[in-house]
């Protein structure tokens, strides 16, 4: 077997105390996991369990207090800017709030072109075609290129965010609740887009989600976080259908019974 694309070992994230009356928060407590190319690992757990802190550490947006994050064999925790900036192209985030993650005054075109410009990969001859290609990849109609975020639906905004992430030609997407804010009818389309991108580009995905029915369907493996620790992990179907840890059982028992829905 080849080495996993992302390899996280004994990751620790701690937030310093805010003021004298509070104590530091140990948000992530020595967790380890891997994600292979073409694989989706779901991170599930209730709010405050440390999912976003894990994502931020993997993305090197917050330096972890301890542990190791290896991406494509490179240790990230010891790399400094500007080298980190180059490495970062390989792993790109998509966040929950589709509007909040776009600049309100930038058109779709500029939003998608920005990563190319910042990375000095913009060429006025080929740039526009590359933007069009990225919009095609996320199935956004080219007629939206001149629009501003407020002129887009939530689902379209989220697709712009995904196109921006893809502009860097990443090998890993870190998805922090990417569909939680979307309407149900729009959610399925965006989820399918992630599956399609994985199939066509071989992307690895770290997929943070609290919808266990969805996780069971789209993820290959799942890791259950509880108070900053992974309490259970394994193939998604196995964990969701035959959980071994009490906490996983509790999470699953709170999913409304789908058998009362239409027989499909």
């Amino acid at each position, binding site marked *: 077997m080849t080495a996993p694309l992302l390899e996280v070992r004994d990751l620790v994230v701690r937030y310093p105390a805010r003021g004298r009356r509070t104590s530091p928060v140990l948000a992530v407590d020595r967790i380890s996991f891997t994600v292979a190319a073409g694989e989706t690992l779901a991170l599930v757990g*209730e*709010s*405050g369990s440390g999912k976003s802190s894990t994502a931020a550490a993997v993305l090197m947006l917050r330096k972890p207090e301890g542990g190791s994050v290896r991406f494509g064999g490179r240790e990230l925790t010891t790399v400094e800017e500007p080298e980190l900036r180059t490495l970062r192209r390989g792993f790109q985030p998509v966040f929950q709030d589709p509007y909040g993650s776009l600049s309100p005054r930038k058109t779709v075109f500029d939003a998608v072109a920005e990563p190319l410009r910042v990375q000095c990969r913009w060429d006025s001859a080929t740039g526009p075609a590359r933007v069009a290609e990225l919009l095609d990849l996320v*199935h956004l109609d080219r007629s939206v290129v001149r629009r501003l975020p407020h002129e887009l*639906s*939530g*689902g*379209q905004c989220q697709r712009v965010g995904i196109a921006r992430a893809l502009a860097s030609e990443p090998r890993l997407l870190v998805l922090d609740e990417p569909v939680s804010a979307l*309407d*149900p*009818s*729009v*959610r*399925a*389309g965006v*989820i*399918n887009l992630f*599956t*399609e991108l994985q199939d066509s580009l071989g992307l690895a995905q770290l997929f943070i989600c*609290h*919808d*266990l*029915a*969805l996780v*069971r*369907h*789209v993820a290959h493996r799942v890791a259950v976080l509880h108070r900053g620790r992974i309490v259970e992990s394994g193939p998604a179907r196995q964990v969701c259908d035959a959980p071994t840890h009490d906490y996983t059982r*509790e*999470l699953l*028992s*709170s*999913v*409304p*019974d*789908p058998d*009362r*829905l*239409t*027989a*499909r």
Partner: protein
Amino acid sequence: MSTEALLEVRGLRITATRPHEVDLVCDVSFEVAAGEMLAVVGESGAGKSITARAVLGLLPAGMRVSGSVRFDGEELVGASDAVYRKLWGHRMAFVPQDALSVLSPVHTVGDQLALAVRSVRGVGRKAALERAVDALDRVGIADAARRARAYPHEFSGGMRQRAVIAMATVNDPDLVVADEPTTALDPTIQARILDMLDTLRERAGMAVVLVTHDLAVAAAHADRVLVMYAGRHVESGPVHRVLREPRAPYTAGLLASLPPRHAESRYLPAMPGAPATTGSLPAGCAFAPRCPAAADSCTRHEPEPAEWQDGHWASCHRLAELPRRTTDLFVGTTA
């Protein structure tokens, strides 16, 4: 139509009067009996929140209501504030979508609940506080007696949300209208609150109108469901009919796009496009631009609710021509 419905809404129309007249909600009817839960489902902009507010007489200025809202036999459309004031908090209670704005930052949670008790019942401070603590305990706030002495800002978001639900239910109202009360909460806490509402329905005969966009929640807890799209009635009736044998293509599409239990493919059936917003509605059926069954006739006029089976209503021109399993309409659509 049953005669014993506690809440009976007929031909509800909500019109925005500024900047120009637009019907935000048009010809919506539903009813809720004591002890029942009606789930109002639909996506953002469907008109769920303003429908909920119209029931309680809490619409923002600049909106006009017509049609009929009868609560325990009394007509509320056009009723005076005095009529509503007698009902609010006592017989009908509201959990608004931005529920956290309900709590005052300058009083403890317990005092606010106790005040709500005393505004309705002639009980002493101590008895009111006891009742408040009970209500907090019911929504799963651990160590409720101690927590009642805390201020809202000392609560986590989830706890504040639960406190608001405790406040709405503290006086055992006949009807609670709750607008997405659990959307921001973790599934475990959500399940707990819905179970609590179920218990209150069983024990005290409380009726609930639950606004949600989560079909699974509706299926697991509601007796009846009303599906709305773009301010219009799409489908309504007993939950096992509407969600197991949906007739309207929109309901079917919502169901089809849920992750299936058994599937070969990792792709989900999906509806194209985004929810329509009132104000810029297409002619005819508002769902037509996204509907795989749309025909030319669909864009000519709006479909009206027709009774498909006992108490199961659907608004669709092609009701009789659709496949038996309407979710099949979306097979292979992975937009």
